[in-house]
């Protein structure tokens, strides 16, 4: 038995137990709420960032009363006959704007020197829902950037505490050595004592990070992402599926990432999430290492999808650090 739900006036049929967010993704387009912490490939994620709040105008056919509060669409299951407003709700727009303001309150806004710029979900969200002027006059909390191993940089200042990287460590690796420490506004992603996050799949923490909190040290300050050409590539690997996107300038591979869908999530290939191992990600930066199939279309509404790749640039930006 499928259940029917209406989101922004568009009806869709989904399996019982589906979340409002995933029902909206089935519709696509403007009906889809943004999600900063939910990650469909990592069970247990979601509910925390509150950017996906929506208005439930009717709970179900059986009980059509509206829900009094906005609900997190990622973690609220649909009911048959539910009516949801996302883009069409002024209340959602206002409150989502409030959430974005909260996420940006302590954010350093250091996009000019952040490797995530151009593919940052917070940038997209700020562009769509933020206001040009901040009302936050207080001192921002700061942390020193640290290396968690020789491949990953942690900029806690930029972190929005989505917990996705913790779920990666729990679900893809044997030993979790990092987590969320302290609490409230002092909560931070940390290893507590200086130690490296090192295991075959730790690099996926970079791919799931919605902001520039976890970045690839082997790509650090090498280029803005929009100057690079993303190419679908494959190599034979014993640890992972070996299916990746290599980001090239001329014949050089600047970085390797997993293949992501339009929600920024690692794609499923042959029924399995195509997580990448650290060997493929960090150790194979020569075009000879890969079979390059052809350009990868990055289907996201951020700056890199606007056709401004490095076609007219002669050189990549100079390394500054």
């Amino acid at each position, binding site marked *: 038995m499928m259940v029917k739900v209406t989101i922004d006036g568009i009806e869709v049929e989904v399996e019982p137990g589906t979340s409002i967010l995933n029902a909206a993704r089935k519709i696509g387009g403007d009906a889809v709420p943004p999600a900063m912490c939910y990650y469909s490939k990592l069970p247990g994620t979601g509910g925390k960032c509150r950017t996906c709040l929506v208005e439930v105008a009717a709970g179900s056919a059986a009980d059509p009363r509206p829900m009094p509060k906005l609900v997190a669409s990622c973690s609220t299951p649909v009911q048959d006959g539910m009516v949801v407003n996302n883009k069409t709700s002024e209340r959602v727009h206002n409150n989502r704007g409030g959430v974005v303001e909260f996420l940006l309150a302590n954010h350093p806004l250091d996009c000019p020197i952040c490797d995530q710029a151009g593919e940052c979900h917070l940038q997209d969200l700020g562009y769509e829902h933020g206001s040009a002027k901040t009302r936050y006059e207080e001192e921002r909390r700061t942390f020193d950037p640290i290396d968690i191993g020789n491949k990953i940089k942690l900029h806690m200042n930029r972190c929005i505490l989505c917990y996705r990287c913790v779920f990666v460590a729990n679900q893809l690796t044997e030993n979790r050595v990092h987590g969320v420490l302290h*609490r409230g506004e002092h*909560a931070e992603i940390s290893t507590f004592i200086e130690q490296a996050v090192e295991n075959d799949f730790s690099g996926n923490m970079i791919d799931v990070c919605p902001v520039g909190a976890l970045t690839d040290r082997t790509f650090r300050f090498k280029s803005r992402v929009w100057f690079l050409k993303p190419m679908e590539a494959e190599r034979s690997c014993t640890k992972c599926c070996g299916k990746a996107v290599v980001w090239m300038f001329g014949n050089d591979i600047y970085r390797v990432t997993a293949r992501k869908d339009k929600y920024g999530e690692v794609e499923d290939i042959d029924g399995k999430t195509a997580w990448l191992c650290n060997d493929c990600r960090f150790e194979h930066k020569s075009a000879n290492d890969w079979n390059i199939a052809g350009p990868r279309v990055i289907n996201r509404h951020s700056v890199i999808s606007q056709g401004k790749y490095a076609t007219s640039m002669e050189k990549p930006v100079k390394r500054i650090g």
Partner: protein
Amino acid sequence: MKNRRLLLEHVDVPGIDGIDVYVKQGGYASLEKALKKMSPEDVVEEVKKSGLRGRGGAGFPTGMKWSFLAKPEGVPRYLVCNADESEPGTFKDRYLMEKIPHLLIEGMILSSFALGANQSYIYIRGEFMYVLNILEKAIAEAYAKGYLGKNILGSGYDLDLVVTPGGGAYICGEETALLESLEGKRGNPRIKPPFPAVKGLWGCPTVVNNVESIAAVVPIVRDGGDAYAAIGIGRSTGTKLISACGNLARPGVYEIDLGLSVEEFIYGDDYCRGIANGKQLKACVPGGSSVPILPHFLVTKTATGEDRLMTYESLAEGGFASGSMLGSGGFIVFDEDQCIVRNTWNFARFYAHESCGQCSPCREGTGWMEKVLSRIEHGQGHMHDIDLLADINKKIEGNTICPLGDAAAWPVAAAIHHFREEFEWHIKHPSEAQTRNYGLIQQPVVA
């Protein structure tokens, strides 16, 4: 005694914390009655009839909460007592557990029997380690007398009871954060649904009840639900422990019949005996720090001039415009010399300190409010800060994973609503505000 009717009836009897004296005063009679003459369903029925509402603050009917408990075959069910009393102004559960621990234990056995739980836990805040020791001693006595363990009083019913401490976190009073903590984790509230009645402790159906709610099951079983419901007014039945504090002549824990007038509670000889040091009442937070503050002219009377009563309904009369809530019964009284701005900042600091940090509106919003209020209190506020605070409030309220967001937002919203002039005065007179208090606000003249 007027202020010691059901729960605290024997609290002053010497040795009542020991099982022999407790039994001598009629203790464990309810348990004998339930196990020998009643079925679990009968106990649930009496609790439903009693109209008992959750005494932790939310006021949700206990019997109804019990009836939501899922009962799948072959899966254990748990009863967890919430003894994480941490809401500023609230110290009633500690008093009850310290003075008369067997009342809670008897209530736990009765309630566990009603719910079909064979393993129950009391989660107590870590700071109350000395109370935990009292409870463990009492539990050992109850085992020795056969009130706990296998085949209790020959009924065939088995129950084990364990007390376990927290480590210092207000948020663990939220029932799902409490369960996380009981599982040995950070006290991050869970995303709901699922609710604990379906998936609670270790993924099993669980009921979480406040200490006072569980203790109230003892007189309910003894006298019957109807007798309990006969006390009080309307949907506010039975007695309620009120912990009174702040600038009162006689602060402390009182057991009142719901329906007592606020006037009598503050000024009556059997209760708080008025404001300390002969001063005047400035304001009151009647149900723990998270409920809206009331200015003096709305404490004993509602906006329409009715007598304000100690009931869930009467204290809420007027909504957020002119009412508050009974909440946990943490009754905080402010005299004429107290500064509302400083107190609002103090509460905001509390909530910012206690936010778990999981969801962004609470993590960022409580910290932001605290900083703005700190500036205002310390003479660096701007006029636009007042509206900013009101707006941050609206963006937190209702948008968080758990009620801590609302709990942090309401006191600030209410303080600005009722005492806006005092905030403005603080901002306009930054240095004066450091040395003297604004004073009482005037009752607005209604045309």
